C-alpha cells in the first residue's frame, strides 16, 4: 500500500530536533523531550490521536509556539528562536487558511511579495506553481469559489511557492471526503516528489501516514512510541499501543513457555502460539501476542498440527466488497477479528452466521509484545 519513495541512500540530516519540550500553564506536557532527525527528501509523518502533541510539535517547527526546552536545527542552523516569518519553512495549514479576500493568484504570490521579489519573477513563479497544481484557469478566482480539492491544491502551491527547505503539512487531507482523499493523496506525493521538498506531516489518519510517509513517528502523550518506516511500524510494532493504534489487531494474553533462539511458544487461553523467531524475554513471563486480522485464515476444516489455530463461532460478518471481516467468538470468550480477501466472486470460505470455524495463521504472522 505504500506509494511513497523509500529512502534510497543515506542523506544528510536537514532537520534536527533535540530534547524538545512544551509545557502549557506550567503543568501540561504537550510535547515531552522529543528528539528526531529528518533527512533531506524525506516525508516524515507524526501520527497520533488528538491531544498526543503532534500539532504542538509541528507548530514549534513552524515557529508559532516557543519550546519550553530543547533546540531545533535546520540545515545546521539553530532556528529555535527565529520568528515564523524568518524561517525558511512553510506550512500547509489544516483547512488551508487561504486568505479569503485574495484571489488564488494573490494567495500564491503573498509569500513571494513579502520577500521583495521582482514583479516579473513573482509572476513567473506563480504561473509555474499554478501549472504544477493544474489550477492555471482558476488564477482569478477567490478561494470560496473553489471546491475542497482545488483549495487544497492552492494551499499546497502557496506553501511551495517560496521553495521552502522544509514543508510542514497539517492534516493535509483532513478536509476532503474519502474518495477525493485517495486521489489527492497520490497527487500530493507526486507533487512533493517532483519539487523534492522535505516534509513533516501531521495526521491522525494511519492510512494517510502509511501511504505518504517514508518514516512514521507514532506519538502518544507528547512522546514518540515508535519511529520507523510504515511497514516496520505496522508489522513490527514495539508496543501494544502502537499495534492497537495502527490498523486492527487481535491481542492474546499469554505466558512465554519455551524460549529458544529460533522460536518461542506462548500459551494463551485460546491456543498455543508457535512463533518462528526468537525474542528477548524470559520463560514464564507474561506477554501479549498481537495478530493482524488479515493474517488469519478461516476454514471449516480443522487445521493440522497443534499450534497457531483456534476454534469459534461466527458472530458477525461484515462484507466490504474487497474483503470480508468475520468476528469469531472463541470458546474462551475472546472475540477474534479475521479478514478474508474475496479473491473469487464466491464468498471465500462459505461461512455464515452461527457456523463453527477454525482460524489459523502462519508462525511468522504474529508479534510477541513483552511490554
Amino acid at each position, binding site marked *: 500500500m505504500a506509494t511513497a519513495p523509500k529512502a534510497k541512500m543515506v542523506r544528510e540530516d536537514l532537520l534536527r530536533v533535540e530534547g524538545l519540550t512544551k509545557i502549557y500553564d506550567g503543568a501540561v506536557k504537550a510535547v515531552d523531550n522529543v528528539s528526531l532527525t529528518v533527512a533531506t527528501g524525506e516525508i516524515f509523518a507524526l501520527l497520533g490521536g488528538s491531544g498526543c502533541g503532534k500539532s504542538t510539535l509541528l507548530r514549534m517547527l513552524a515557529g508559532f509556539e516557543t519550546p519550553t526546552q530543547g533546540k531545533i536545527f535546520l540545515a545546521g542552523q539553530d532556528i529555535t528562536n527565529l520568528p515564523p*516569518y524568518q524561517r525558511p519553512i512553510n*506550512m500547509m495549514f489544516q483547512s488551508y487558511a487561504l486568505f479569503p479576500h485574495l484571489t488564488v493568484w494573490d494567495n500564491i504570490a503573498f509569500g513571494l511579495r513579502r*520577500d521583495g521579489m521582482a514583479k516579473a519573477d513573482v509572476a513567473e513563479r506563480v504561473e509555474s506553481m499554478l501549472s504544477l497544481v493544474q489550477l492555471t484557469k482558476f488564477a482569478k478566482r477567490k478561494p470560496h469559489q473553489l471546491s475542497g480539492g482545488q483549495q487544497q491544491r492552492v494551499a499546497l502551491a502557496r*506553501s511551495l511557492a*517560496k521553495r521552502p527547505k522544509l514543508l510542514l503539512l497539517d492534516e493535509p487531507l483532513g478536509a476532503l471526503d474519502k474518495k477525493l482523499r485517495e486521489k489527492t493523496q497520490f497527487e500530493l506525493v507526486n507533487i512533493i516528489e517532483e519539487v523534492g521538498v522535505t516534509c513533516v506531516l501531521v495526521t491522525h489518519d494511519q492510512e494517510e501516514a502509511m501511504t505518504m510517509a517514508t518514516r512514521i513517528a507514532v506519538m502518544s502523550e507528547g512522546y514518540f512510541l515508535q519511529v520507523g518506516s510504515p511497514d516496520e511500524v505496522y508489522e513490527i510494532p514495539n508496543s501494544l499501543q502502537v499495534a492497537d493504534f495502527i490498523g486492527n489487531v487481535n491481542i492474546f494474553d499469554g505466558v512465554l513457555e519455551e524460549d529458544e533462539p529460533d522460536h518461542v511458544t506462548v500459551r494463551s487461553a485460546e491456543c498455543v502460539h508457535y512463533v518462528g523467531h526468537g525474542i528477548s524475554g524470559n520463560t514464564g513471563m507474561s506477554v501479549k501476542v498481537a495478530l493482524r486480522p488479515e493474517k488469519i485464515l478461516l476454514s471449516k476444516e480443522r487445521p493440522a498440527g497443534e499450534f497457531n489455530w483456534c476454534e469459534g463461532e461466527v458472530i458477525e460478518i461484515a462484507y466490504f466488497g474487497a474483503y470480508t471481516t468475520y468476528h469469531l467468538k472463541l470458546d474462551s470468550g475472546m472475540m477474534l477479528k479475521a479478514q478474508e480477501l474475496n479473491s473469487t466472486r464466491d464468498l471465500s470460505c462459505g461461512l455464515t452466521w452461527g457456523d463453527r470455524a477454525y482460524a489459523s495463521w502462519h508462525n511468522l504472522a504474529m508479534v510477541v509484545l513483552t511490554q
Partner: protein
Amino acid sequence: MKANPTGIYNYLRRYINGRLLVIGVPYFWFVLLALIPLLIILKFSLSEMEATEVSNMVSMSDGWFTLKLNFSNYLFIGTDPLYFDTFVSSIKYALATTVICLVIAYPFAYFMARSPTHLQPMLLMLIMLPFWTSFLIRIYAWKTLLVSDGVFSNVLMSLGMIDTPLQIMNTSTSLMIGMVYSYLPFMILPLYANLSKLDMRYLEAAADLGASPFKAFWLVTVPLSKAGIIAGSMLVFIPALGEYVIPELLGGSDTLMIGRVLWDEFFSNNDWAMASAVAVVMILLILLPMAIFNKYQADQAEAQR
C-alpha cells in the same frame, strides 16, 4: 345555511398564517412609524406656508380636482448658498468624526478582541457604560470641561503646558471633541464584533509566508475587517450628519450643521415646508452611503454563499 365557523376559520387560515404574522408585525411598525411620517414630511416639503399653516396640496372646487406641488423650497435650497454650504460643512464634520472615530476605535477594538476571553464582557460593559447616563447630561458635562476656566484649561495651565486659558469652547474643536466622544462606541462595537471573529490562522499563515506582524496587520487583518469598518462608519456617519444637539451645545455660532438649520426653519422661522425640504435632501444624502453599504453587504453575502 348557517355559516360554518370552521369554514371561515379555514378561509382565514389560508390568508393569515404564522409566517405572514411574523413578517407583518415589523412591516406594520415600519409603515406606521417610518414610512407614513416620511411621506408626511415629503408632502410638507412640496407645500407652501400660509401664515402658520401648511397649504393644502389637493383641493376640489367646481368639479376641478387640483393637486398643487410646490417645488420652490427645493429650488431655494438649490440657489441659496447657505444651504449648500451647510450641507457641505455637515458632510465635512460627519466625515471628520467618522475618520477620527475609526482611528481611535480600531486599536481599541483590536486590543479588546485580543484581550483574555474572561475580560471581554467587562470591557464591553465599560464601552456601553456611558449610555447609562443621559446623552444631554454628558454633552453638558463636556461644556464644563472645555470652557476657558474649565477643568482641562486649569489643569493644563497649572502643569505649565499652556500660558493662556484654552479657547476651544464653541469652536469646531469643541464640536469635534463632542462628536467623537459621543459616536466612538458606535464605531468600537461593530469593529470589536468583527475583529473578535477573525480567524487567527490567517495571521499565522501570513507569518508563515514571511509577513512581519505589522505587514500581516495591514495585509490581512485590515482587509478582513472591512465589513466592520464599513458598518461602524455608517453607524457614525449617518447620525453625525444630522446631529443637532452637539453643534448646538458645543459648536460655535459659525459652525454650520444641517441639524441646526432644520431647527431654525422649524422653530424660529416656522417654515415647516422649507424645513421638510431640507430634511428630504438630507435623507437623500444619507441614502447614498447606505446604498453603497447595502451593495457591499450583498456582495459579502454572495461571497460567503
